[in-house]
């Protein structure tokens, strides 16, 4: 097999290229971001009222919840979410979520940047419409 060397060299190059993202970033892991809660969100937290779902569920699954909300609002015309405690929320990213979490840069963006995800929610939805 006269091609043996070429094949091995080729495989080596392939391996180096495919693992490129790992070794180029080795040892450069950023520190986990520290999220800052806006005053309204902090108040809800302190009073024990919390978010629409328990903290750890929100942390892990807020994107699925937003997906369900948008489906319900846009396609089924059902806009009110009734939480487990019976509290009602208007299912709106801008007018409900971002009204309480009025600090997108310190809340949403920090974690999204850390996780290197760029959701395009804000291409359309207006950040914190009612202002501080």
């Amino acid at each position, binding site marked *: 097999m006269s091609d043996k060397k070429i094949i091995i060299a080729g495989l080596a190059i392939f391996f180096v290229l495919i693992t490129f993202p790992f070794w180029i970033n080795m040892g450069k892991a950023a520190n986990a971001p520290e999220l800052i809660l806006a005053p309204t969100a902090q108040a809800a937290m302190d009073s024990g009222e919390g978010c629409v779902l328990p903290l750890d569920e929100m942390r892990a699954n807020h994107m699925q919840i937003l997906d369900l909300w948008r489906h319900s609002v846009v396609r089924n015309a059902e806009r009110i979410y009734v939480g487990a405690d019976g509290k009602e929320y208007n299912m709106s990213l801008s007018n409900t979520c971002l009204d309480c979490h009025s600090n997108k840069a310190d809340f949403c963006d920090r974690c999204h940047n850390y996780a290197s995800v760029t959701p395009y929610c804000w291409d*359309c939805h207006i950040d914190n419409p009612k202002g501080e």
Partner: protein
Amino acid sequence: MESSRRRFLKLAGISAVGLGTAPALNAFAASGGHDAAQPYVKKGARALRAKQWAMVIDTRRFHSAKDLEPMIEACNKSHNIPTKITNTDHEIKWIWEAEFHHAFPTKASKFLSEEIEHKSFLVLCNHCENPSCVRACPTKATFKRESDGIVLMDFHRCIGCRFCMAACPFGARSFNFRDPRDFIPEDDKNLEFPTRMKGVVEKCNFCAERLAVGKEPACVEASDGAIIFGDLYDPHSHVREVLKENYTIRRKQQLGTEPSVYYIV
């Protein structure tokens, strides 16, 4: 309400495992019982309901293009329409004005009354009962909402193929040829309503967001009673009362799409 609860649970099933509440959700779905501890979704208490929303435009009340401006402006402002786009090729229009022979090209007689010939008419999406745009959409991004017959756009899902624009016989659809945000007048924004992004199609939504909180569409509110809005299939609705008493026409009725916007001429 029961059915909406079930629908939400069905949806939630997609991510139920991730939510860590799958067993509880499944148990609930199986029992069908009333468990206050589970979240659910519903319509707002003040939401207006109908089988098929419809509109009657009393064009006798409008005499010039100027008379139509309040309605068009109310809509533009309410929905963040990028009115600063100067290139007419890229215009976004939800409700606009057209002369009779453009609004009703198949009805324009050779000798029209002078008043009609030079008058402006409001045109918008007809929220057809058999919408050809919905038939054409390859992703169901535009759909006819079962609960109230509104032909709506799901901007999250639209792939921008523009098949619906070819399919619409009323030219009611606009495409975002570029990012619309730079073209929305700063002081005429509705911050509580989203904008759109480049690459998606948009059109009149019969103010679904206002109906949900008990308000009539923005153009109806601004019309001072010249536009009547209501349920086409409620024999006692205001719309039906007006239709009973007046001769009305619809745009391109012969195409069988069954427009829900009627005109008293």
